[in-house]
């Protein structure tokens, strides 16, 4: 393999795995790259089973309707169509969220709609046929009776009780409050009060591999196997067991290579349950590959929130108090991943952000509407809240006539650990340093000096600063600090076989992040072996220890990596004891390095890992010294919370005559504590920034007045392309966590959280002279054009 050069602006260069030098911290080339780039990856569409059928769902064309008879006779008459199932054909328990928050109402979601459809695209029936094309032919012929109902689309109206109820008990599922300090007193004492509204857009995650699964039921053993493009095999196993009524011992979930997920593949999806049931009912394996149209229409959406904010400031710009009201549009079901509160609740908890705010009150509401349900997507909950707060601060700076970066700086948390007023314990960080670094790198002072309204015919230029803190590495404690009672722990296992090869088994599958490499680095360092001796396996519930939460919440390095480091330490000590026996030395004199054992002060006495493993397995005499010589260590880990931080800065040019926004520079300073693999971290930061830019400028799920989807293809749902992004500039600070193994923190979501705020603030800065406020994303450029036209005339 050729060492690759890493991207501009970053200190890292890719290296070949070194020998004895520590691997943690080195930009080791990805172990899976050659395999994936050569097309040797194995995704759901690569899985073939004997006698396998192909599925196509019949989906509701209505946003809201009573469901009548489903008639599959015409479809069944087609050659190649084997079965048509509707809800009544596949009895099961509905999907439910398992969130325990008082006052949150549950909304059972069936695998196939029965009696009522609640969103455009909801699955109503499934057709099984000899090929996907034939299944689509069949789906066209399934006749479904609908009696349309008025759709509920506006979350405010839903919360207020207008429109028909989607569920008994009304459309408002939750109303609650966070109260910290004395916010009324803070506002009474304020010299300035600034308020703002923000409508955070509805996103689609759009993983390159859409959803999909293959289900196979073995009538002999009664075992159900589901190969599924999922982030959480154990969680999915649990949901399948609950809905289908099989013990978890008889459900096996395997995540093969997963082509992107970004949170969309955290939940158990109605379609996956339906396919599992259908395979059992038809007695043949069934494959469902979601196409792009289905994915945009019916896979969960994300992030939409309506936020009102109010900031109290002293005359000198000190933040005194913050008030907010956050309404989450949950879509048609409180989704089983993390419920209707996934967005507004998380948003409310992090609303104070990197700022010293002690007096805070936030009202939290969640309502159901006739849209595809909301589930996690990179930066869950935090994107909209962060953007709302940063736009509020921009507005405050303009009203007070102070520099927005300086206003932020003067209010930043600057000593650690710091407990936020919402109960988050910020472990360590470089809040001020990251901001200062970002300002220096972008040349902020100079940009400010050049600022002001543009000369005629010139674009309006603006700069936007977006410092962030990101809860990462969710164990149960991290979840709890986000006010979420949620079991979020991992177990891992490291084994050495008689050949001396190391296998690390973890419950968190990778969706392309490079976990395999990052985790192998930790194991190799922990054991003192070479990188290529370590194999990481993941994502098969029958062979890997349990991960209750799966791959989510920037947690794999901290929780799973931490568990592996601890397991490796234990296994290393055992290896050294066995080597001491073999080499006739005291255990504390034996050291392993790069897979070789040596005795201190005696270079003649040496052993390889293979020789030591051989002894462990095949030399009975060893047991006199070590009764249990097995080379397998399991470890449970549920670390304390950790918080990454950093700062994103955007520089934009706005053509106020056409509304065209050009992103001239996009810069990020990232601090995720101890970095295991800088190249992988850069990849994560870059990808999240791109998605954040998409949200700021382009991405928006749209529904028509009748509740039908208007953004159902990639021409209409506009993801940013490479040509829409500048060369991203990356810089790093490092504040190791005092609470986690190795000081690691999580990484991967910051750009999705902070970039929309940076770009929005930059545009707001550029067009401030026109009096245009940014109150929603993606930026409505026509408002800028209209304001500029009005100003000219």
């Amino acid at each position, binding site marked *: 393999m050729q060492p690759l050069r890493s991207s501009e602006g970053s200190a890292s260069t890719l290296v070949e795995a070194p020998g004895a030098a520590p691997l943690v911290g080195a930009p080791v080339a990805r172990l899976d790259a050659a395999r994936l780039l050569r097309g040797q990856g194995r995704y759901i569409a690569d899985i073939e089973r004997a006698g396998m059928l192909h599925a196509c769902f019949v989906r509701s064309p209505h946003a809201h309707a009573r469901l009548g008879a489903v008639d599959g006779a015409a479809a069944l008459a087609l050659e190649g169509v084997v079965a048509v199932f509707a809800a009544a054909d596949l009895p099961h328990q509905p999907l439910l969220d398992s969130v325990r928050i008082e006052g949150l109402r549950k909304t059972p979601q069936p695998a196939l709609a029965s009696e009522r459809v609640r969103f455009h695209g909801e699955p109503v029936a499934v057709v099984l046929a000899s090929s*996907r094309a034939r299944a*689509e032919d069949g789906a066209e012929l399934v006749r479904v009776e609908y009696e349309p109902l008025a759709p509920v689309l506006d979350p405010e109206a839903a919360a207020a009780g207008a429109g028909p109820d989607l569920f008994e008990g009304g459309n408002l599922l939750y109303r609650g409050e966070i109260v910290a300090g004395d916010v009324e007193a803070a506002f009474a004492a304020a010299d300035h009060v600034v308020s703002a509204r923000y409508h955070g857009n509805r996103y689609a995650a759009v993983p390159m591999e859409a959803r999909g699964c293959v289900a196979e039921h073995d009538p002999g053993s009664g075992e159900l196997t589901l190969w599924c493009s999922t982030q959480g095999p154990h969680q999915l196993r649990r949901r399948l067991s609950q809905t289908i009524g099989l013990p978890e011992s008889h459900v096996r979930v395997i995540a093969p290579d997963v082509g992107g997920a970004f949170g969309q593949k955290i939940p158990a999806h109605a379609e996956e349950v339906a396919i599992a049931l259908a395979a059992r009912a038809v007695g043949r394996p069934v494959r469902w590959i979601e196409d792009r149209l289905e994915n945009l229409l019916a896979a969960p959406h994300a992030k939409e929130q309506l936020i009102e904010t109010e900031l109290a400031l002293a005359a000198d710009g000190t933040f005194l108090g913050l008030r907010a009201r956050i309404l989450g549009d949950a879509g048609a079901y409180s989704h089983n991943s993390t419920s209707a509160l996934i967005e507004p609740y998380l948003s409310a908890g992090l609303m104070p952000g990197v700022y010293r705010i002690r007096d805070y009150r936030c009202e939290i509401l969640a309502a159901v509407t006739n849209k595809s349900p909301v589930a996690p997507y990179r930066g869950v909950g935090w994107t909209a809240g962060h953007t709302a707060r940063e736009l509020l601060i921009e507005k405050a700076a303009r009203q007070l006539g102070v520099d927005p970066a300086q206003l932020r700086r003067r209010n930043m948390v600057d000593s650690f650990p710091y407990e936020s007023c919402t109960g988050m314990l910020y472990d360590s960080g470089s809040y001020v340093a990251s901001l200062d670094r970002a300002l220096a790198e972008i040349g902020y002072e100079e940009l400010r000096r050049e600022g002001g309204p543009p000369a005629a015919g010139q674009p309006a230029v603006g700069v936007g600063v977006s410092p962030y803190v990101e809860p990462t590495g969710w164990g149960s404690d991290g979840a709890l600090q986000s006010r979420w009672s949620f079991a979020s722990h991992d177990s891992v296992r490291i084994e050495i076989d008689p050949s001396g090869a190391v296998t690390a088994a973890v419950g968190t599958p990778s969706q392309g992040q490079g976990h395999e490499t990052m985790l192998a680095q930790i194991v190799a360092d922990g054991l003192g072996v070479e990188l290529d001796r370590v194999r990481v396996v993941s994502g098969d519930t029958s062979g890997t220890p349990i991960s209750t939460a799966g791959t989510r919440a920037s947690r794999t390095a901290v929780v799973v990596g931490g568990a592996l480091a601890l397991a490796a330490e234990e296994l290393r000590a055992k290896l050294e004891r066995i080597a001491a026996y073999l080499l006739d030395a005291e255990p504390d004199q034996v050291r392993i390095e790069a897979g070789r054992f040596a005795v201190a002060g005696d270079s003649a006495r040496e052993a390889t890992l293979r020789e030591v493993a051989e002894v462990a397995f095949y030399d009975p005499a060893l047991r006199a010294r070590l009764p249990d010589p097995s080379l397998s260590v399991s470890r449970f880990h549920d670390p304390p919370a950790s918080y990454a931080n950093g700062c994103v800065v955007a520089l934009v040019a706005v053509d106020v*005559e056409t*509304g065209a926004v050009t992103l001239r520079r996009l810069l990020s300073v990232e601090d995720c504590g101890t970095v295991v693999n800088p190249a992988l971290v850069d990849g994560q930061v870059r990808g999240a920034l791109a998605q954040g830019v998409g949200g700021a400028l382009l991405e928006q799920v*749209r529904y028509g007045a009748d509740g039908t989807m208007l*953004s159902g293809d990639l021409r209409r749902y*506009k993801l*940013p*392309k490479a*040509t829409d992004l500048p060369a991203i500039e990356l810089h790093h600070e490092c504040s190791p966590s005092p609470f986690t193994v190795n000081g690691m923190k999580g990484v991967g979501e910051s750009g999705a959280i902070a970039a929309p705020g940076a770009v929005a603030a930059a545009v707001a800065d550029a067009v401030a002279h026109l009096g245009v406020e940014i109150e929603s994303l993606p930026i409505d450029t026509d408002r800028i054009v209209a304001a500029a036209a009005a100003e000219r005339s």
Partner: protein
Amino acid sequence: MKSAAFAYHAPAAVGEAAALLAAHGERARVLAGGQSLVPLMHRRIERPEHLVDLNRVAGLDRLEAGPEGLRIGATARQRQVESDPAVAARWPLLAEAIAEVAHPAIRNRGTVVGSLCNADPSAELPSAALALEGTIVAAGADGEREIPLADFFTGPGETALSRSELALELRLPAPPPRTGSAWLELARRGGDLPVAGVAAVVSLDADGRCERVRLVCANAAPVPLDCRFQAEALLGAAVDEEGAAAVGAAVAAAAGPVDDYQGSAVERRRVLAVLVRRALLLAAERAGGRS
């Protein structure tokens, strides 16, 4: 997203293709680069029973620049036309417009003639080719005929071709001396179909006065909108800011854009006025005579 079943035909000669179209009429579709047709088939919006693939018809990929003009065969790829030195030198508007069509991977397959037959009023090529006063040569069972582009576009996705005809080639006349052109568009992303686009071609007399002007707007009406009438207010004088802005305002008033996923009609009018002004000034400057 799998197309409905269809029969596939790969004729080797124009006559054979025309015969297939004559035989199957409404139930057949011509396949050129497939970059518009195939996605529509996968979505089952188009469901031809017969697909007549032109890609194996010998000679249809011709690209010939001569003294009378340019001939672009039905299977000549957009990328091929865009990178041709003669096109860049004499019909730079075409190259400039194609550069905004999608991305190279798509232009490697997509054809210029296919884009015209696809007749998307928001697409770059129909407007650009109309501004260059192109003519389509069509072939049917009864032989060939010429259709000026001014008569070719009849509605969104509709052309003057009958279902039993295929377009053989696009012909563009040689532009007069002292001609400059410009393609300007507003697109939400690089490679997107424009929210609005403008093709301007300005020819000057020896004294720098506007002698001839062609102006066509994309996404301003159900067909590429020919705004020659509004633009001819510039004739006889140097093209200046004020004159160009007046044409922009007149075009915005005359256009009939609609609300769609890209933006509102109101926004389109605003943007059209700006793009028309800028495109006319740029074309005049390139013609060598901006005052």
